[in-house]
């Protein structure tokens, strides 16, 4: 058996949706168990009081990166069929900024707002309403944004290509950066706790 399963036709669109639901519920469960159903905890990372989000996300990146690398190396995942979305530098920087400001102000990102709502928090529900409203508004006004949306394209860029570093070396660099960041985050947290 070889991944990606959907691309290889091992199951159809309906099964794909069921898988998405199961994985989504699993994702939500672990977000909640990591404490990410609380807007206070999530916002605390921006004040360096609690860097759990940073550590969890960086752990996820490193885990996925190593998993994809080695699964592909042993022929269990066909990387040529994994299509990352294209990069548009300026619009994505602007999008990231809007996302970040929303995150600091409200305390939730899209996934965690769903987790918060499911666990009975009304501020999470407000975020979901905002998210759906934003999606509808963006979709309806897309013709006005389209020229900006496709500005500065860098299709399917990956760091290895952009920096001209061998793929495996880049994996090592990102892993070392993550390990160093975890140690640094622990130190910052313990110093702030001591204060």
């Amino acid at each position, binding site marked *: 058996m070889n991944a990606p399963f*959907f*691309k*290889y*036709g091992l199951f*159809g669109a309906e099964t794909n949706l069921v898988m998405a639901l199961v994985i989504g519920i699993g994702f939500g469960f672990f977000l909640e*168990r990591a404490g990410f159903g609380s807007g206070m905890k999530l916002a605390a990372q921006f004040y360096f009081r609690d860097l759990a989000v940073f550590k969890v996300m960086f752990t996820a990146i*490193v*885990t996925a990166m*190593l998993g*994809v*690398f*080695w699964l*592909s*190396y042993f*022929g269990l995942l*066909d*990387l*040529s*069929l994994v*299509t990352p979305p*294209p990069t548009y530098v300026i619009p994505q920087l602007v999008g990231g900024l809007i996302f970040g400001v929303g995150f600091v102000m409200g305390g939730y990102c899209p996934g965690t707002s769903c987790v918060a709502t499911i666990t009975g928090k009304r501020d999470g529900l407000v975020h979901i309403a905002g998210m759906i409203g934003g999606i509808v508004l963006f979709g309806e006004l897309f013709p006005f944004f389209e020229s900006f949306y496709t500005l500065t394209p860098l*299709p*399917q860029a*990956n760091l*290895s*290509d952009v920096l001209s570093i*061998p*793929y*495996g*070396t880049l*994996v*090592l660099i*990102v*892993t*070392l950066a*993550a*390990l160093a960041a*975890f140690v640094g985050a622990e130190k910052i947290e313990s110093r702030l706790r001591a204060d």
Partner: protein
Amino acid sequence: MQTNPQFIRVLAASAFVLAIAAAIVGLPSTKSRVTIDTHELARIVEAEEDHVDAIELAEWIKAGKSDLTIVDLRSRAGFDSTRIPGALNVSLRQLDSALRKTQTIVLYSEGGVHSAQAWFLLKALGYPKVFFLKGGMKEWESEVVYPMFDAGLSSEERTQRTELSKFFGGEVGERRSNEAKKIPAPRKKSVAPKQKPEQQPERDPFRQVC
């Protein structure tokens, strides 16, 4: 919830070891190695099960065949100027990432060389239902959209071809018996409904070749 510090250290050490090994190995995947059953491919070609003709494809589109994916392998400019309705513009290098193995795929190019090559690539990669359009875009135009009827054509075939031509926004013509066969030039710039072109990836760093 407190996590055992010993466990965290083991995880970090595992990540470190895997990353060091990744740096030594260098690339995540070797080029794909596929096994090609040349006898089976030869049988398919000899049995003429590798292609569809323009009229057969036109009937599939008209009947609304549900799993049909039509792939235009020509340049973007050619695709924008005229195309078979519903086709996707995909380059040879993007084929494998743009398609799924469950679909019935019909490939076409201007004449037929590129589509036959693409057919071989997809068959080698294990796509079960792939066909190329015999004669390519040229035959589509001359057989379906702007057909010239010979005097000896049966009335049933004449009706079928006229209906197809009308369905695809073309028109039919009569060929006199002593007139040499020639492909009429398209009289309309585009016969396909204008569609928003799909966003296609420009390149794939891990493109596998067989």
